[in-house]
C-alpha cells in the first residue's frame, strides 16, 4: 500500500484521542514514511507532508524540563501578564539561552508604549 492512497481514503475520520501504535512486525509501516522524534513521538506522513506531532500528555511531560524554570532572557516585563502587578522587574536571567546575541536586550524599555491602568 502506498501512504498516499491510504491518506486520501480516510480524509474525514476522527483523530484518535490517544496515539497507540501496536505493530507485530514492520510490514504495516511503509519504510521511510514514519519516524520518531527524539522523545519518541511518532512522526507520520499526512497530506501536508511529514509533520512533527505531539500529544498533550507528551507536551505536559516536557513542562518539567529544568530549562523551563527560568524565564526567557528577552521576556518583556508586563505587569500583570509576565510579572506580578506592582512587582519589580525580574532580574535578567543569566542562563544561557538559545540566543546569545548582545543586541538582544530585554524589551523592558518598550514598556511605556503600553498603557496600563493599574
Amino acid at each position, binding site marked *: 500500500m502506498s501512504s498516499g492512497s491510504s491518506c486520501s481514503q480516510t*480524509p474525514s475520520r476522527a*483523530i484518535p484521542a490517544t496515539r497507540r501504535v501496536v505493530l507485530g512486525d514492520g510490514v504495516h509501516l511503509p519504510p521511510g514514511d514514519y519516524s520518531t522524534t527524539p522523545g519518541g513521538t511518532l512522526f507520520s506522513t499526512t497530506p*501536508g507532508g511529514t509533520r512533527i506531532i505531539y500529544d*498533550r500528555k507528551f*507536551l*505536559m511531560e516536557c513542562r518539567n524540563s529544568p530549562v523551563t524554570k527560568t524565564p526567557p532572557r528577552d521576556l*518583556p516585563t508586563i505587569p500583570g501578564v509576565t510579572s506580578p502587578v506592582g512587582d519589580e522587574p525580574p532580574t535578567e536571567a543569566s542562563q544561557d539561552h538559545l540566543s546569545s546575541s548582545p543586541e538582544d536586550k530585554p524589551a523592558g524599555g518598550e514598556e511605556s508604549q503600553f498603557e496600563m*491602568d493599574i
Partner: protein
Amino acid sequence: MNNKFDALKDDDSGDHDQNEENGAQKDGEKEKTERDKSQSSSKRKAVVPGPAEHPLQYNYTFWYSRRTPGRPTSSQSYEQNVKQIGTFASVEQFWRFYSHMVRPGDLTGHSDFHLFKEGIKPMWEDDANKNGGKWIIRLRKGLASRCWENLILAMLGEQFMVGEEICGAVVSVRFQEDIISIWNKTASDQATTARIRDTLRRVLNLPPNTIMEYKTHTDSIKCLSCSPLLYEGRRDHVYKPELSTERDQYYE
C-alpha cells in the same frame, strides 16, 4: 543555533555538487541561511530549538493585547495595542514562556493572548489571515485557562491535521465571558473548517451542545464599518449558519 547555520555554510562551500539534486538542496539551504542572516542583522536572530529540545513543526509567537478604554477599535490602534511577548521553536521554549506568563483567567480587563505562527500578525489584515476565518467558542468565566491550554497544546502538537491551514489562536478575556478562537487561512475550505471544529470538540472536551461559531475575517472587517442593518443583509457570508449563534457584537 549559530553553529547550525555556520555548519551548513561550511558544508556548502566545501562541497562541489556531487549530484544535481543534492546541489539544488544545498543551494536552497544556502539561500535560507543568507536570508536568516540578513534578517538577523536588521532585526533579531532566528529562533531555533536548543540542543536536546523537542522541535515544533512551526515557530510560534506569543502576543498580548489590552484595549485602552475609550479608543476606537480601528486596525491602527489595534496594532499599537498588540505587544509581542516572544517567539519559540521547541516544546521546552514554549513552556519557558508559558510558565512565566499569567493564565488567561487571571488577566484583568479587556485583554487577549494571541499565539500565532511566527511571521503572522494576529490581525485580520495579515496576508495569511485575509481570506481566513476563525472558530469562536464563548466560555463562561472560570473555564478560559484550561481551555486555552488545551487549545494551544493541540495546535503546537499539530493535532488539527489540516496541513498549513492553522494561523493561530486567541483567548479574549471580556467582562462577562471569555472567548477562545482558532484562526485558519482559508475560510471557504469547508473540509478544513469542519476538521478544525471536530478537533476542537475533542481536545477541549466540549459538551456536545456547546455552540461553536465560524466567522470569516471579511465579515469581521465589514462589521466594523457597516451599520448593523447592512450587516444583517450579509448573513449569507456566514459559514455554517446552522451553527451560528445570534451574531452579536463580537468585533475582536
